[in-house]
């Protein structure tokens, strides 16, 4: 497959933005500035970006509780996201959703979701809209290894197959569901075989390898746009940090992640290949790094200083009319 260098630069920018964003959030959670539960995406950046590089604003994604990376990859505004995480005025959801429920319908981002297995049924609904309107749009649901066990996910896969919906089931196998390892909690041991059992093409890829995810997505999106129905991709990439920030991770071998960070960090992996094979310059990548650091620093400052929602907003937005 050939890769457009402009697309690759954009992909790098999004992955770096996620990394920078999440590392900063980690420090902020530790400093106690962030309300609510925060689940970080470090280590899994290539999945969201490898998938979303194929999607337009008119395509849809459904996300999870670990949704910051999905939002950034889908093009949501960094400042809008941070304002939302800080639950401030001007946040993407006006502070009513917070980290676990961020949505940006203009970007086809149908919401992070604090109900495990909540998003796939919504995403097939978006796929149905695209199918009925006949606009060649597609929908994708990000689904954790843990979430893959929910009945809602099975039902959605089945419905998508029966109706040949333009749908992609993007499994993010990061090794754990909360404190339980995938080797234990996944009956049958294999998400891809399960998905294949529903009669859709199902592939398993290295989720730390942007190119692997991107290539698998290319075919899944083509199928969906051409009306051939759903596909499943299982992308394997360990999460670097705890389930949520503050998780002691006693279920995890000490050093498990140190090793991973050395050997399969999606960013250096991408950079190595993109500079060696596709002519991206190291300096331009460093410039992007620098620029994103500034953007995120500034956006965090803005979010912290922004005004809080006012009390009467508690009552707004429950209905359109009532």
């Amino acid at each position, binding site marked *: 497959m050939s890769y457009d260098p402009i697309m690759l630069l954009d992909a790098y920018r999004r992955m770096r933005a996620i990394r920078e964003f999440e590392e900063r959030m980690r420090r902020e959670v530790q400093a106690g500035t962030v309300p*609510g539960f925060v689940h970080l995406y470090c280590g899994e950046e290539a999945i969201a970006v490898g998938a979303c590089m194929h999607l337009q604003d008119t395509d849809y994604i459904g996300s999870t509780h670990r949704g910051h990376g999905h939002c950034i990859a889908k093009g949501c505004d960094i400042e809008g996201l941070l304002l939302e995480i800080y*639950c401030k005025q001007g946040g993407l959801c006006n502070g009513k959703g917070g*980290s*676990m429920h961020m949505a940006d319908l203009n970007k086809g981002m149908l919401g992070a979701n604090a*109900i495990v297995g909540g998003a796939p049924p919504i995403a097939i609904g978006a796929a149905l809209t695209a199918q009925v309107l006949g606009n060649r749009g597609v929908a994708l649901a990000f689904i954790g290894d843990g979430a893959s066990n929910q009945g809602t996910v099975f039902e959605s896969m089945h419905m998508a197959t029966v109706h040949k919906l333009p749908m992609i089931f993007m499994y993010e196998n990061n090794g754990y569901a909360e404190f339980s390892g995938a080797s234990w909690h996944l009956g049958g041991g294999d998400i891809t075989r399960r998905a294949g059992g529903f009669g859709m093409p199902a592939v398993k890829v290295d989720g730390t390898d942007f190119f692997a995810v991107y290539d698998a997505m290319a075919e899944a999106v083509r199928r969906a746009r051409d009306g051939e129905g759903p596909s499943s991709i299982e992308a394997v990439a360990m999460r670097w940090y705890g389930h949520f920030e503050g998780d002691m991770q006693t*279920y995890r*071998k000490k050093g498990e992640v140190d090793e991973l960070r050395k050997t399969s960090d999606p960013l250096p992996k991408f950079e190595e290949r993109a500079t060696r094979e596709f002519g991206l310059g190291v300096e331009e990548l460093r410039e992007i790094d620098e620029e994103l650091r500034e953007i995120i620093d500034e956006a965090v400052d803005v979010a912290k200083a922004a005004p809080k929602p006012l009390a009467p907003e508690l009552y707004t937005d429950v209905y359109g009319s009532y």
Partner: protein
Amino acid sequence: MPQKNIRDAINETLKLEMRRDPRVVVIGEDVVGGLGGSSGVEEAAGGTFGVTAGLAAEFGRRRVIDTPITESAIIGMAGGAALTGLRPVAELMFIDFIGVCFDQILNQIAKFRYMFGGKARVPVVIRTMTGAGLGTGPQHSQSLYNMLANVPGIKVVLPSNAYDAKGLLTTAIRDDDPVIFCENKAMYLDACEVPDESYTIPFGQAAITRPGSDVTVVALSRMVTLANQVADKLAGEGIRVEVVDPRTISPLDTATILGSVQKTGRLVAVDECNPVCSFASELVSLAACEAYDALQAAPVKVTAPHTPVPAAPDLEQYYVPSLARIEEAIRNTLGGSTASARKVV
């Protein structure tokens, strides 16, 4: 007597009941924790909030049953096991997740005894976390037990302190009917004196946590703590507030509530649930229908508003009934005006 917090009191109760009856089993997500983890640490969690810690070590994994994320199967499995001879204590991590498994509760577990002509026993307990105030957003902060009290066939229990938590959970586990046991997530570390040995607290028996004669405040769960504080404050001004904690809302101790309202002539219903078709409404209807002649002022509801729980802590503080709102409502019923007590902000 030793001081214990609610988390430890529940943990101790589970252990005592599992020792007493080998048919008692615990089922839920990460109730053991760490299975399949790379550290090999056995029981790496003992529940997300540590409530089931030490159970797997003592009773083994045959009786402490960790599960994948699959609430419909967890709750259904517990119900089916109860129907066939076990006494499961299932954990529904947050009550918000009830959406995923509601059929098993609503159409299956709650109805077995009745629709099988009284021939079934369904001794299942569903332990679950309720409550707002911790910034956990619209899908992890609800109370929802209102809805469950509306379903015939389920008992609904809401302990407001560690002593009651132990006695009520013991009763729940020994009861032959389905019980939803609601633990407020902001209260796990609240402690009081709790005996080491087992004891039961009957369902449908309210506690009067503050005796008084001027106004009756009926409150549940964490709202009891707030109501007690307001009662103590107003006692300094000579206002004698009676706080009634029903402890179970299905069955409901209407006699104690009505007795109190008949004595005081005034009712303030405090609850964290949404207000429409709610427990607070039920209390008001009870007073209106059964104690009409005794009422000296219109009953007042202090509840969450008819909105979801916002993520923003700055909005959430207005969502949950506060000390100030409870106090204002009490003063209003004493002053005869109820208009402003209905308004949240």
